[in-house]
């Protein structure tokens, strides 16, 4: 006699044990340390921190190790951990104008105060596999120079001073925290930017790319891209003033976009904005393009029906933890709903066959 599949509990335990073994791989090969992941897979660590919305390189390294290098799984581990942490308060806005820049480039001006600083970039490397790395990872020290002492001003500030770049409205209102408030539409720019910065890099990249190819085209110049460390300050109520509690690495991108002006406004450039944890410049640039595309309404542009202009579409599909969870849930048993579909299709087919049979009989008569 058939016995319904039992023993789910043991099967799950065994699957997890096997997973742990597979994660470790060949035991003759040295085990990865978290420090190795943190120091040598830094860009993966950065992505996991950015999309996990938690700045902690050691935890991100642990998540990457635990997830066998599946970064979305690692991001999920970070999010699930983050949500359990108590919330002491909100930091003061970080001042990116005071950033200690490792990299700072502008595509709009050949030179500007602070200069063009390439920093540690892949940009001009030839993408040739370096077989030397396979044998020996030793590198000579890179040439060093004393860092710039004074802050590096934003490129946008030069355009703004001349009135060529649209000023963003100032507000002291507390922005909505998307991890504490359910999403509702229209979401507004503060919520959009929060969603985009933790959104899936691939999704944001694809959406940004679509605007470059003509779906709500708005040509973007990279006014400035800067990467470096900023201080994080927290106001302590007992003290009555803010103190620095640490520093984080950020990538910031401001794009300068064409804008022809309107009846009420003279022609002016407008901006898109991207800000992401760590060195994550592809994501920061993509975010700025998508941000700019989503601003069509406030800037009086036409709704071209493009995906990148559609706030609800972008925000409800950019989160890879939501997306992967729902996508993969179709692996779960669905035999009850499938059974009801089966019954329905059988019934409809029976009725259709009866109708055909009747017609054939009538035709014969």
């Amino acid at each position: 006699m058939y016995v319904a599949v039992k023993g789910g509990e043991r099967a799950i335990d065994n699957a997890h044990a096997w997973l742990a073994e597979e994660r470790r791989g060949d035991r003759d090969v040295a085990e990865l340390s978290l420090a190795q992941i943190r120091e040598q897979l830094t860009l993966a660590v950065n992505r996991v921190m950015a999309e996990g919305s938690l700045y902690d390189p050691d935890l991100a390294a642990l998540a990457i190790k635990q997830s066998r290098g599946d970064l979305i799984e690692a991001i999920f581990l970070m999010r699930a951990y983050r949500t359990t942490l108590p919330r002491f308060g909100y930091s003061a806005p970080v001042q990116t104008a005071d950033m200690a820049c490792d990299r700072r480039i502008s595509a709009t001006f050949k030179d500007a105060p602070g200069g063009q600083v390439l920093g540690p970039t892949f940009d001009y490397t030839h993408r040739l596999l370096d077989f030397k790395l396979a044998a020996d990872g030793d590198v000579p020290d890179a040439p060093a120079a004393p860092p710039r002492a004074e802050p590096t001003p934003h490129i946008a500030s030069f355009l703004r001073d001349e009135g060529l770049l649209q000023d963003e409205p100032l507000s002291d209102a507390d922005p909505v925290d998307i991890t504490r408030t359910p999403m509702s539409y229209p979401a507004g720019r503060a919520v959009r930017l929060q969603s985009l910065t933790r959104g899936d890099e691939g999704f944001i990249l694809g959406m940004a790319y679509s605007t470059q190819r003509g779906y709500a085209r708005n040509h973007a110049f990279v006014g400035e891209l800067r990467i470096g460390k900023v201080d994080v300050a927290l106001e302590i109520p007992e003290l009555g003033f803010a103190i620095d509690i640490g520093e984080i690495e950020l990538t910031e991108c401001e794009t300068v976009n064409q804008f022809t002006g309107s009846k009420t406004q003279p022609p002016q450039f407008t901006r898109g904005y991207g800000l992401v944890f760590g060195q994550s410049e592809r994501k920061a640039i993509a975010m700025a393009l998508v941000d700019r595309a989503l601003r069509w309404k406030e800037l009086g542009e036409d709704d071209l029906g493009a995906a990148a202009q559609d706030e609800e579409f972008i925000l409800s599909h950019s989160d890879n933890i939501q997306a992967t969870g729902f996508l993969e849930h179709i692996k779960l048993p669905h035999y009850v709903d499938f059974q009801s579909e089966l019954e329905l299709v059988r019934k409809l087919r029976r009725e259709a066959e009866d109708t055909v049979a009747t017609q054939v009989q009538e035709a014969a008569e």
Partner: protein
Amino acid sequence: MSDYNFAYLDEQTKRMIRRAILKGLAVPGYQVPFASREMPMPYGWGTGGVQVSAAVLTPQDRFKVIDQGADDTTNAVSIRKFFERTAGVDTTEDTRCASVIQTRHRIPEAPLSADQILVYQVPIPEPLRFLEPRETETRKMHSLQEYGLMHVKLYEDISRHGAIATSYAYPVQVADRYVMDPSPIPKFDNPKLDMAAIQLFGAGREQRIYAVPPHTKVVSLDFDDYPFDPSKADHACALCGADDSYLDEVIVDDAGGRMFMCSDTDYCRTRRDAGHVGTAEEAA
């Protein structure tokens, strides 16, 4: 596991969820937005139901989890284990002994009573979603009680197929007001939605909670000349002989032989313990 608060979520989060539940009970069938948390299981795997269960569980509760009607399906096992670890509550497979039952895709066959809570896992809470993908539009349609689109869809089904071609997640109207998605339960279960127990629906990824209070009128949408038909497979359970329960179809041999058995494993076991036998048992 003392590293986490009782039932995993912190008390502030549970309060927020309880407020949403109370609002849902006060406005039956209305989808209440709530600030859903990331849970240690994936979105789409019952995070809404888990958050609702975490918010209503007390240390005295007896908790039951079913998926597809069964206590031993893998995800039901996983969720039950989660609450055993994080809440330390007693668990049971016996429907009648459970004070809180979390379910996916089924309503238990045994009638529930006033001292029980049934928590549903909901993938897409919006019954109008596949007719109108935009939340901004569907919220407007609910507030105006503008459900014509749904009736047109059901009508088109009849004109195309001769019957309403929705067999699960069959839309209902609650307390003569909101059209509600009962979650992907088979339509066979719809008549049970008017029950003595509290019914809570949690959609984690979509950040919505809704509820049906005890003894609330729940009507499956239909037409006078095409009345709602809660059909099921025209068989009896091969194990316990029940002809009033929802059945799973199982392929038993290479020749495509089929067997039908209760999807509600507790109902089936209870009947067999009481001496009922089906055709498979008689043959054995």
